[in-house]
């Protein structure tokens, strides 16, 4: 920490690896998911390339969150498979997913409301901690050194997302827009290779949305993190995504660059409705 004197935000090690869009790292192939008789997803296929911002959009009930939960290992699809970093799997549990470098945020925030912003983000570092619980509790030897390292990483994220002023405020006391930012910070604390964002802009006003967009693009640019985000606000998504998948009633109805998707007849119909 002392050695960091004078250096400011965004310095290594988090700073590595912002290259432009690379190879496919995640491929979803023919995934179908149903809950009893309800078909949530039907034969959905798409891929995600390294370092890209990939959006999944669709009207309410289109299966967006289900899709994310499948990638995340919360739901296990009945059919189809998912390839991540060349590894093929059908039912990976969420802990393994996290360890393989996928982090996510939640539509309904998953934060510890009574804990401070700092502690919440520290909790996101949990997977990276190597010393055992006893050493951590006593804060001795290697555990102390490790805590210092983690604290520094967390401070970089706090600096990055500009939440210095709220470092020691319990999360429950923050306005919603800021809580969303803390949720993103917690996910970033894992230093993920791929970040899944579930409606990161839901319930925000225009200014908060713009801030969030800027942070998402910054994360993508600065850390090279691949980003998969769900959103039903089309306008916002189109501006920040490299490619967009459109779902409707559990089926893929469009896939391509924002311009292609915007011109897609099926997408327009799904969003604006058609007269029958």
């Amino acid at each position, binding site marked *: 920490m002392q050695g960091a*004197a*004078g250096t400011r935000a965004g310095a290594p090690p988090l700073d590595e690896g912002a290259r432009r869009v690379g190879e496919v790292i995640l491929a979803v192939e023919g995934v179908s998911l149903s809950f009893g008789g309800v078909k949530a997803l039907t034969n959905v296929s798409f891929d995600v390339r390294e370092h890209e911002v990939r959006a999944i959009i669709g009207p309410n009930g289109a299966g967006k969150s289900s899709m994310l939960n499948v990638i995340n290992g919360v739901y296990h699809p009945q059919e189809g498979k998912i390839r991540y970093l060349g590894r093929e799997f059908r039912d990976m549990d969420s802990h393994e997913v996290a360890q393989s470098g996928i982090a996510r945020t939640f539509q309904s925030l998953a934060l510890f409301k009574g804990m401070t912003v700092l502690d919440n983000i520290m909790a996101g570092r949990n997977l990276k901690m190597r010393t055992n619980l006893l050493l951590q509790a006593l804060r001795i030897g290697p555990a102390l050194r490790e805590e210092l390292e983690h604290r520094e990483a967390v401070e970089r994220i706090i600096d990055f997302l500009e939440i*210095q*002023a709220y470092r020691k405020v319990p999360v429950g006391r923050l306005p919603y827009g800021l809580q969303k930012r803390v949720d993103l910070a917690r996910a970033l604390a894992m230093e993920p290779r791929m970040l899944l964002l579930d409606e990161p802009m839901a319930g925000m006003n225009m200014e908060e949305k713009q801030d969030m967009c800027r942070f998402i693009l910054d994360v993508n640019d600065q850390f090279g993190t691949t980003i998969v985000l769900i959103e039903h606000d089309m306008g916002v998504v189109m501006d920040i995504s490299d490619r967009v998948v459109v779902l409707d009633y559990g089926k893929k109805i469009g896939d391509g660059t924002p311009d292609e998707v915007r011109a897609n007849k099926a997408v327009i119909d799904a969003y604006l409705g058609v007269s029958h």
Partner: protein
Amino acid sequence: MPESLAGLDTFPKLLMHHARVRPQRPAIREKDLGIWQTWTWSRFADEVRAMACGLAEHGFKRGDHLALVGDNRPRIYAAMCAAQCLGGIPVPLYQDAVAAEMAYPIQNASITHAIAEDQEQVDKLLEILPQCPSLERIYYDDPRGLRHYAQPQLMSCDALRELGRETFRRDPAYLETEIAKGSSEDTAAMFFTSGTTGVPKGVVLTHASLIDRARAAAEMEDLGDADVVLAYLPPAWIGQNIFSYAQPFVTGYCICCPESSETVMSDMREIGPTYYFAPPRVLEALLTQVSIRMEDASALKRALYRYFMEVARRTGGALLDGRPVGLADRLLYRLGDMLVYGPLRNVLGMSRVRVAYTAGEAIGPDLFRFYRSIGINLKQLYGSTETSVFVCVQPNGQVKADTVGPAVKGVELSFTPERELLIRSPGLFKEYYKNPVATAEAKDAQGWFHTGDAGYFDADGHVKIIDRVKDVGKLADGSIFAPKYLENKLKFFPYVKEAVAFGHGRDRVCAFINMDMEAVGNWAEKRNLPYAGYVDLASRDEVYELVRECIEKVNADLAAEPELAASQIHRYLILHKQLEADDGELTRTAKVRRRHVGEKYAALVDALYGGAQTVHVEAQVRYEDGRTGSISADLKIRDAKTFTPAAAKKAA
């Protein structure tokens, strides 16, 4: 000050002196990644050497100007000194100015090199690059977001420092010689004054003038290297620059840069500055926060607070001034200090404050007394960019709410017959850059600086500023009329939002009052006074009574001042609508456009002087969505009691 600073006549020489005498003392701190990081004086000198050599390598030479665009950061101040080492002139610019506003200073001073704090500032400089062909190099402190910028002008401060280190290693003597070449009469810095009156003017200040004023005030307040300052106002403002550059260089004290503008409050509590400056609006915002939090406190705490603040009001100021206070009050105050004032100072981050200044605009007496009563040595000062700040400062023990104090050592003051304050001081500016006409207007052949402020000496020899000279008028009997002074006095009452005083060329003073809807609304609610809306409330007799009390208090105050006793307010009315910038009644900075209001409501002014009891008014209003509508109302006009000067003196 025990240490001799003889021969140290420029800022770079002072820096090297501190690096020798107190190498391990903290010079500048910055909170980074949640931890306060310290630059010692020796580190500060190293950074400055490296930056200076780097700049020299990039063609920055004697007489060149270096733009500094950013918030308070160690690097910004290091760059400032680096430019001075080479005989160059730093030009700090307001970091929140829009790009277009930065173009003028850069063109005016043909600035070649610039230091920008971060991406935001770099973007602005790049935007105006086509209009500013002189700008060759832009160095940035914080690299975040700048990775993909390929402009050839851009370079990081880190790279500049490395380049400079290399150069310094090859030829350390070069910089020594350059620093030694500097003389006290060289230009040390240039500050652009805000262009409220036409285009901005570059105020050229020499090392001699800045160092002289910084030292005079530091000696007066006995500042030393144990003092600590929080640098939270824009570095482009001369005041912040004096407190966070000139004075630390003279005394060796430490300045601290907050983490961000939102964290100033908590950073201030962590640092505990001993020397503090805040304009009245900041002090007011702090007091409001305290008041709001007290409202939410438990009944016991509220009662304690109320009781002990009353004790403080009675005795706090007197104790601070060293006036005699009875033993019982002294003990009570001691108890209050333990229970209320101490914790309060701690919350405000002012536990260690020895000297606090406020300036810039008139401060309300209640606000001023609040801080003094809880044991914070808040004082007023007077100065401007052209005078290197320190012209008047209130000495300890002679503090008043309505003056700015006597002249600081070395300053001569006088007043013209029009009551304009003239200043002759070693701290005066050399000139306005490339503007001999403006220079000649402001500084006459005898070396007097014409401030444009009107005022007079009070009975104790303190300067009292009442208004701008151009706004000061005369009543029909020839006594002076300073509308701003009256309006400020009225506005210190919470119920008065705005006031407009008339009197120039008239036999007596009359005023429009704009009530503060929130404060008067609350007051009405507490008294179960029903009202239908703004117009209705403003026309209530009860509200007129409330305002009358305020005016009569002002009149009593005025009667005690022989110079202004004739300006007591005889008649007043309460306006039926708020004065709005959208309606052209206020400027965008919320100052009353007195002349415009007078013309727009000429009928009301005539009624005030005509002796009518009511007047009908119809006015156009523009709503926020651009539509217009009209309001009509019958306004009452009431008389206020005035006091004869002699009687008021006896009462006081």
